[in-house]
């Protein structure tokens, strides 16, 4: 059984009412989504002048990422393919506008009107062909082409993705470049399997500044402000984790010479024939036996 939702069902089916419900009830999911979107907004590098911008949230789902945008004072338009997720967003009374749409069909927005776009864990869905009419390459091209058109000049798009493998990463990045974007991938915590997160940071037109750096790169320890040690410890103690429980317990309570002598005494008292105690009683076997 695979844990990647992309391999289980198309998004509009996978994110049904049950799955959408998780996004309001699970504090863990909410926490992760909030952190991802905060980082995405940071990478968006909007000018720091307190003017609210019009942003786009691609694959907005239940509006968790949009909430971060609202907290930063921006107006946003959210696009998602799952009606169930959008219903949850309505329940949460998000401030942005919601649109039911498929990013693989192109965004359908006027050119040059959007000040920035974010997307949390959505774009990798485009690599799947869920219907016979789906051709990932055409859908990626339509998506990045329409994204490039609707963004204003110099605007950025920050897309957090979970590519399945190297080929998928290159496919996505390749189509972004072909659409005219400049930029690249920012990897946070590249040495951690769990916390590793990839962001496609794309700029319309020439890059305004050097690409931002990922968190926890080059030897910098992964423990920034919030790592409570739990996750780090887990990755350090891998050998311990994989050791079978039974063996550990046996090692602690090994029955030694004393225990054997006690048992033999008990048997003697019962009148059984017991070999005499010698220096060989309960001695250890050689390792190579």
């Amino acid at each position, binding site marked *: 059984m695979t844990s990647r939702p992309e391999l289980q069902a198309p998004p509009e089916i996978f994110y049904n009412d049950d799955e959408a419900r998780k996004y309001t009830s699970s504090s863990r999911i909410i926490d992760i989504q909030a952190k991802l979107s905060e980082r995405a907004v940071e990478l968006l590098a909007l000018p720091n002048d*307190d*003017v*609210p*911008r*019009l942003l786009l949230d691609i694959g907005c789902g239940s509006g968790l990422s949009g909430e971060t945008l609202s907290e930063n*004072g921006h*107006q946003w*338009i959210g696009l998602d*393919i799952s009606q169930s997720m*959008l*219903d949850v967003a*309505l329940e949460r009374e998000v401030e942005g*506008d*919601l*649109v*039911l*749409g*498929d990013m693989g*069909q*192109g*965004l*359908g*927005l*006027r050119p*040059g*009107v*959007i000040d920035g776009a974010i997307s949390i864990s959505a774009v990798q869905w485009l690599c799947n062909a869920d*219907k016979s*009419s789906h051709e990932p390459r055409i859908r990626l091209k*339509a998506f990045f082409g*329409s994204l490039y058109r*609707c963004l*204003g000049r110099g605007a950025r798009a920050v897309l957090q993705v979970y590519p399945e493998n190297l080929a998928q990463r290159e496919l996505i990045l390749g189509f972004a470049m072909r659409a005219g974007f400049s930029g690249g991938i920012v990897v946070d915590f590249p040495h951690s399997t769990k916390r590793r997160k990839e962001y496609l940071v794309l700029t319309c037109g020439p890059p305004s500044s050097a690409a931002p750096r990922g968190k926890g790169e080059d030897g910098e320890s992964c423990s920034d402000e919030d790592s409570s040690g739990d996750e780090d410890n887990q990755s350090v103690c891998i050998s311990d984790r994989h050791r079978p429980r039974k063996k550990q317990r046996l090692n602690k309570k090994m029955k030694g010479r004393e225990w054997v002598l006690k048992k033999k005494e008990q048997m003697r008292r019962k009148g059984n024939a017991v070999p005499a105690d010698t220096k060989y009683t309960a001695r250890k076997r050689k390792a190579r036996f």
Partner: protein
Amino acid sequence: MRLLTHNMLSSNIKGVTNGFPLLIEVEKVVEKQVDFNEDFLRNMFAKIEWKALVKASRTMGYTELPENSEASMLNSDEFLRKFHHALLELHLEEGALVCPETGRKFPVNKGIPNMLLHEDEV
């Protein structure tokens, strides 16, 4: 759906050259209070297609917006209030958006326009 979003959306159907502006069929309009922010309005003004906004707000039953606009009007507080109301506070709750070229209807339910295309429209 606010008129801000309506002003950005265009019909995405294959072969349509001018899918903007989408016509509005109104069934239900609601008004929601939104915080007034002058900076946002000034920033958005250049990007708004004024004619489309005026037409859309009239179909929604709000007739206060002037027919034509220019940047100098942004200095008037009264104008900004009207602009703000039309852009952010009028919500199309139920109805449809209609592609100006093909007449294809995109239904709007609970304020969410369904812009999904059929396979032959991509």
